[in-house]
């Protein structure tokens, strides 16, 4: 039996009717046409399906859409400041070429955003730990780690209003 659920995604509210068995991943992709979250394994190992739930990275293939109401869900589509613009993290990934095929990339960037929101000066080990739940088969991780370190360095050099993490959690007040 389909159920109605209201999802808050990238600051906008969406009411959808889904079977209980529809994963949050499939719901984002098929109902909300947000294709940036990707299916890699559908059993919670590869991390390509990562979204932010209240700012924390989680595997959207391991949640059912009917469980996902009441959270602020952020997908990769919620991170760009505007059409054709890149967030500092996204731009850093382009600077270091922290990807090849791009399939794991939205998940990596979301994990990076979450890391830097709480830790503006992560060590290499902390960066590695933050992305350790996301598998990449193309890059061997080196240029991804460098992207995150570069983003951290650039963001530390920027004036930021006290207490605000505006770009890290798009959609929040």
């Amino acid at each position, binding site marked *: 039996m389909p159920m109605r659920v209201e999802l808050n995604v990238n600051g906008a509210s969406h009411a959808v009717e889904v079977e209980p*068995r529809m994963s949050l991943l*499939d719901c984002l992709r098929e109902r909300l046409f947000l294709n940036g979250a990707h299916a890699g394994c559908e059993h919670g190992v590869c991390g390509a399906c*990562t979204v932010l*739930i209240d700012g*924390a*990275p989680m595997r959207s293939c391991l949640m059912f859409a009917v469980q996902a109401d009441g959270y602020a869900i952020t997908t990769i589509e919620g991170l760009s400041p505007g059409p054709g613009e890149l967030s500092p993290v996204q731009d850093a990934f382009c600077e270091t070429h922290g990807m090849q095929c791009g399939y794991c990339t939205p998940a990596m960037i979301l994990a990076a955003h979450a890391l830097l929101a709480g830790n503006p000066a992560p060590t290499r080990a902390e960066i590695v730990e933050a992305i*350790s739940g996301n598998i990449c088969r193309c890059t061997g991780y080196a240029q991804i780690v460098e992207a995150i370190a570069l983003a951290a360095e650039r963001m530390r050099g920027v004036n930021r209003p006290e207490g605000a993490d505006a770009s890290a959690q798009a959609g929040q007040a």
Partner: protein
Amino acid sequence: MKPAAFEYARPASLEEACALLAQSDDARIIAGGQTLVPLMAMRLARPRLLIDIARIGALAFIRREGDMVAIGATTRQCLLERDPIIRSDLPLLAKVMPFIGHAPTRARGTVGGSLANADPAAEIALVAVTLGASLSYRDGDATAEIAAGDFFIGPMMTALPATACLTAARFPIWREARIGTGFHEVNARQSDFAFAAAAAQLALDADGICRRAAIGVGAVTMVPLRLAAVADALLGTRCEAAQVRDAVTSALAGIEPMADLHASAAYRRRAAVSLAVRAITDAYEAARDANAC
């Protein structure tokens, strides 16, 4: 890998959840879902009703209750990593948290979910057995307590009745002045299920003599093992290397380690000895260096 169809219920209270569980012949409880959902995706689990208890507030808590720390079953694992009560009162549990899965699975997975799943390599289960935690559950209208050592009865098998819902785990607080903990595991990749794991918590007196010990080994046998004989052997000693090794070796000589695709029984036994010695050594050194407080 789409699950078989099911109905979804989100009861507002534990009573409602148990009632639903009792009246359905094919229902399962879901909290974090980090283990259950993959099983459902592979259609190895196919409940007709999923009872979501994750948002029942009464089941999520971390609090002191006398000489215990009580942790509600639906408490997210990530909260344990940062909670001050866990850090100060259950240092061994705090120590193992980063080894459990990955941050994204700890963000969603729950303490109760890990315990109820009963993977032989689960770290929380190992700590529960090592420290002698007790688990409480509700079955219909009745509530019951069971010692962790009696709770785990086989790989992925617990003594929890089919109609019951785990509600809390209670871990004893050690009040000794000089406490140290140690934990080691070996796995193919960091964060994989371990092939062997060992946990130790020691309390020393002012002269560095061990006055209290709790040692456990996990992932080696079908359920976590509390090594009471090793703990006893360490009491009254300074945990010298050779003595620790002898105690651990003889305690593990008689166990029946698991063997699978990843590791032989002999490997598990050998690794368990090595890791237990390390865990005990770490715990001793940490306790010895701890300031009385």
